[in-house]
């Protein structure tokens, strides 16, 4: 057998189709999952720690008494004494908790500011990029590719990573958070914008143009009314997402609730962590409900 014949021998098998293709995919996926589990087990990293149940119960017990209850049930005269019984300090737990809650309210507001301003900045930054990448607008190819590249990179890098870099550049505080949110969400907005524009009814645009309308008239009468509700819907959706995202930005020093979370975790103050998490949950749920209602009204 000649070398050429040997090389040519295996006939190109047809691409897997239908159920066979699906079975092959499922098999490959199963193999991947097994590989992950096996390598973890081999490295001895597949463990739940020494006594997970005790830890779980202790954590639950800690969380079950959120610190804000001190506002009503805290000791009004908590005395700190030295070993020989001398009175060192007297603390009013209620007053301490009240001032903590005031700080929590300020942090919540900062988180909201970061999410709101970051989302708005992202929406504005993404607008030209979205217009460039919408296929039916026919932007020059190299520009469209460049814009798509920027959007893909922005989406690929997590908000926290942007935040870490930005804290180094603009310093600690909400500005870094706002910029981090803006850079990551820009990618999401650009993609959503392009999709809204691509779903535009071009026959309606043609019909308006056929009445002799000027380009501006076509834009305001055919393009804008179709695209605006979608833009507003997208904005609310990403904003809602960013409220959730910005609650952890404080972990890297970018301001807001995350700072209180990291503080409570470092000091093992699970009661305070429970209080902060309750605020996060309430904030996210409230904004979700509001945004969903507005988006439904816009349909």
């Amino acid at each position, binding site marked *: 057998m000649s070398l050429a014949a040997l090389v040519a021998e295996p006939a190109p098998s047809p691409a897997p189709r239908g159920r066979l293709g699906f079975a092959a995919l499922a098999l490959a996926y199963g193999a991947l999952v097994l590989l992950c589990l096996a390598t973890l087990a081999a490295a001895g990293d597949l463990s739940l720690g020494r006594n997970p149940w005790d830890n779980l119960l202790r954590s639950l017990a800690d969380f079950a008494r959120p610190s804000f209850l001190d506002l009503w049930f805290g000791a009004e005269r908590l005395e700190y004494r030295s070993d020989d019984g001398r009175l060192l300090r007297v603390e009013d737990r209620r007053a301490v908790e009240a001032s903590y809650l005031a700080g929590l309210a300020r942090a919540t507001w900062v988180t909201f500011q970061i999410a709101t301003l970051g989302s708005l900045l992202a929406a504005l930054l993404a607008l030209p990029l979205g217009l460039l990448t919408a296929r039916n607008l026919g932007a020059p190819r190299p520009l469209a590719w460049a814009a798509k590249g920027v959007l893909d990179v922005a989406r690929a890098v997590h908000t926290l990573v942007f935040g870490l870099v930005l804290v180094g550049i603009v310093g600690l505080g909400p500005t870094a958070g706002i910029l981090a949110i803006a850079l990551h969400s820009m990618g999401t907005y650009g993609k959503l914008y392009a999709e809204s524009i691509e779903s535009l*009814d071009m*026959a*309606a645009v*043609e*019909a*308006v*143009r*056929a*009445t*002799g*309308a*000027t380009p*501006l*008239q076509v834009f*305001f*009468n*055919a393009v804008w*009314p*179709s695209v605006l*509700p979608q833009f507003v819907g997208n904005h609310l959706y990403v904003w809602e997402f960013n409220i959730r995202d910005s609650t952890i930005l404080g972990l890297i020093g970018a301001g807001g609730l995350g700072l209180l979370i990291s503080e409570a975790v470092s000091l093992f103050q699970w009661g305070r962590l429970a209080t902060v998490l309750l605020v996060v949950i309430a904030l996210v749920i409230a904004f979700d409900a509001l945004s969903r209602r507005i988006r439904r009204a816009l349909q």
Partner: protein
Amino acid sequence: MTPPAVIRLQGVTVEAGGRVLLQVPELLIRAGERVALVGANGAGKSTLLRLLTGLAVPARGEVEVLGRRLDAAAPRPLSRAGWRALRAEVGQVMQGLHLVPRLSALENVLVGALARRDELPAWRSWTRLYPAPLVGEAEAALARLGLAARAGTRADRLSGGERQKVGLARLMLQRPRLLLADEPTSALDPASTELAAAVLREAASRATLVSVVHHAALLPLLADRVIGLAGGGIVFDRPRAGLDDERLAALYRAPASAAGELLDDLPGAAAARLAAAHP
């Protein structure tokens, strides 16, 4: 004195992929004429209409619409503003021309007035804050078509027939000098077909009307001149009065593939009424 020519074709050939779609040695349509284009599918009716809106470009020959040359060989190509002015004067009722889904029926009707620039300041046309007289006119147009109650409904919530009527109302506000209609009543029930044809006829009373007609019963309403097309060429061109059914039927028999859609699919009752009303 003969009225001026609105449409003038001279030695026109339209090709697509090396195939001849339409060949018209000469065609002249004068102001005020009402012309019906009849013929089987693929006979060249739609190509002729597309030629008149500039959507189809002739490989050879001259195309003149409302005094403007549209072919590539024109001594002076039409400017952007020239095309806009032409579009404003040419009203279209076409299958593919949709309403703006998010605008109300009334706002869609008012789109027809966008080119009436002396009555509609630019900023009002951008903000859709239309002046009261135009709004009144649009409401009257909708009422004429029996859609007064649907004025505030969004176009994407209207039925197919209602949309076609809104398209007609839009045309009434456009006040075109030349009206091009392709199956203007396809989505309408018999009663609405009568009404729509009457509206179209009214709109055409101040204009020239060229329509593709599929229902023989509508010919008396929409045409006093009938042009028969087959295989991309004109096979007859004569006054409607002198047209016999045999000639029409022959047009649809000629190509084996074409079904006789002209004479059969308007529901009987409406056809009879129309025929009685317009002998």
